[in-house]
């Protein structure tokens, strides 16, 4: 009896080759994506590292425009201020909206709200900048005392509009994950609805809300286009006043990248590096928090 070879031939062999090709393509695709990330991180890091020193973080731009030195302290402070304003607006609004959809709204209305939040999420950020400009920069806003000029409040509002759908959607998802029996137990004991939401549902979802907000902050911190119209012309010193226009890291990168001063180019790369690090750290932290809160609710993968 001749030995039967187990090696595939003909059609079987072709199928194996196709399989191998497909697998290689998938590996190559992933490798390409990671290679691009590595190249970007490497370019930014290697070009910017020279400008990163203590002065970079605590000083403002130097007055010698063709010389070196100075830093981006005003931009760092400005970005913090903008994000603080954005969170102060988007977090309560987003969480309250999510509570409405998950606790109070009839199904049809809840679907509508979700739909329009998704539509809002898809709006180009530059359009949102134009919207806030027309509403709060070009005209004076009665009562609130802002308007007539660019300000951190206007810029923060534009960022808040961008953050809102993200915060609302992630909060909705987390609220939906709260076990029904918790709510029912609380209500069965005679606890009112609002107490149930505030003392039972929200604390349980706290981790998820934090995660969603952190991800939204990571997104908003890097936005440039909306700030072009609402908070772009600002001074060179550290300014904590939200009714003033303030510097911001993304706009500083944008301006320095086209500046006449090669030292500012290096600072643009350095600022880009800091921004990436910030966004990466917040994204990773929020992912870790998400994993932790999922495990707590017994849903870890």
């Amino acid at each position, binding site marked *: 009896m001749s030995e039967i070879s187990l090696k595939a031939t003909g059609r079987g062999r072709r199928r194996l080759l196709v399989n191998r090709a497909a697998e290689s393509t998938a590996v190559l695709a*992933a490798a390409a*994506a990671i290679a691009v990330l590595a190249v970007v991180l490497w370019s930014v890091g290697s070009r910017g590292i020279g400008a990163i020193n203590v002065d970079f973080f605590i000083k403002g731009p130097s007055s010698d425009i063709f010389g070196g030195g100075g830093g981006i302290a005003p931009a760092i402070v400005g970005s913090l201020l903008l994000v603080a304003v954005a969170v102060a607006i988007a977090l309560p609004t987003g969480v309250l909206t999510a509570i409405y959809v998950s606790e109070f709204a009839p199904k049809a209305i809840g679907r509508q709200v979700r739909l329009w939040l998704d539509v809002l999420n898809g709006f180009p950020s530059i359009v949102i900048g134009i919207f806030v400009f027309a509403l709060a920069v070009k005209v004076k806003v009665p009562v609130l005392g802002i308007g007539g000029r660019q300000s951190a409040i206007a810029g923060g509002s534009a960022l808040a509009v961008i953050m809102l759908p993200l915060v609302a959607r992630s909060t909705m998802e987390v609220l939906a994950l709260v076990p029904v029996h918790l709510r029912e137990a609380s209500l069965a004991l005679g606890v009112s609805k609002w*107490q149930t939401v505030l003392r039972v549902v929200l604390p349980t979802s706290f981790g998820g809300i934090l995660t969603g907000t952190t991800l939204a902050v990571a997104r908003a911190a890097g936005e440039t286009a909306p700030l072009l119209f609402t908070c772009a012309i600002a001074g060179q010193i550290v300014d904590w006043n939200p009714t003033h226009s303030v510097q911001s890291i993304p706009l500083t990168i944008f301006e320095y990248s086209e500046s006449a001063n090669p030292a500012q180019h290096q600072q643009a790369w350095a600022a880009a590096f800091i921004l990436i690090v910030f966004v990466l750290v917040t994204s990773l932290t929020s992912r870790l928090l998400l994993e932790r809160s999922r495990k707590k609710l017994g849903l870890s993968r």
Partner: protein
Amino acid sequence: MEAASVPAGLPRTRRLGDRIGDGVLYGLTAFAAFLAVLVVAAIVWRVAAGAWPAIRAFHLGFLWHNQWNAVFDEFGARDFIIGTVVTSFGAILLSAPLSIAIGLFLSELAPPAIRTPIGSLVDMLAAVPSVVIGLWGIYVLAPFNAQHLQTFIHSILGWIPIFGGDPHTPTTMFSAIVVLTIMTLPITSSICRELFLGVPEELEEGALGLGATRWEMVRTVVVPSVRGGVVAAVILGLGRALGEAIAVTQVIGNFIPLHASLFSPGDTIASRVANQYQGATTNLQIAALIYLALILLVITFITNLAAQRVIKRFEFQRTGGG
């Protein structure tokens, strides 16, 4: 699993305070939701209002006239619309297959140990802000394209008009397409990964058990069952590409009229608005720029609704009509 339980000491009777509290919470949350939806309408309204002087001056002809001259107040959107569509579709043409491949890699093919780290790395690409990608684009990618990538493609495919012309210009439509591909890739691939992971294991193992190779299993079981979701993911990526202003404006060359070749400079709606808005010289130019923004808004709105439609149908199909 630690179970959270009802805190001790909560009131157990239904008092006036409770009724008021319920009402207040309902009112607050309903108002917030109403605000969120109102913002959408307000945005559309304000953009339309800002564009009105230009709409009145140019009517719908704005869409197919092709000039942009601030000196003589002659404005038309045609090549910006074409540029937007070409760059965005070009980007998803490249990123969609790559995203599917990466999604498959992360869900099916990679050893379980490296799935999370690699997945995190791909997601990190999404974390890079667009201004940084733009900065990297001008100083690293564009010269690379001009000196190597574009010339390489031109040497092989130069007989096709879109790859014709002189490939030595750094800031081109092609550079913009590459930048947009990099930006849409993480979004689409992470959604694809979630979709592929969601396919029931029994289906996959059934196919494997019947003797299919991994690729055949993917082709016949996984992909068809999540086809709708993949389409939705691609459309969402498209929406992101359509609206991208900063990274595109830095590498696209800011020039109209468009040439046939991708290796020549061009422009998109978002890029032109970002570039010219701050320094606009006449009120009609400002209105024309907002008119452009309105067109972009309509395009992204339609794209978004299309994605929602596909998702709805996909959900319906996946849950068996339930």
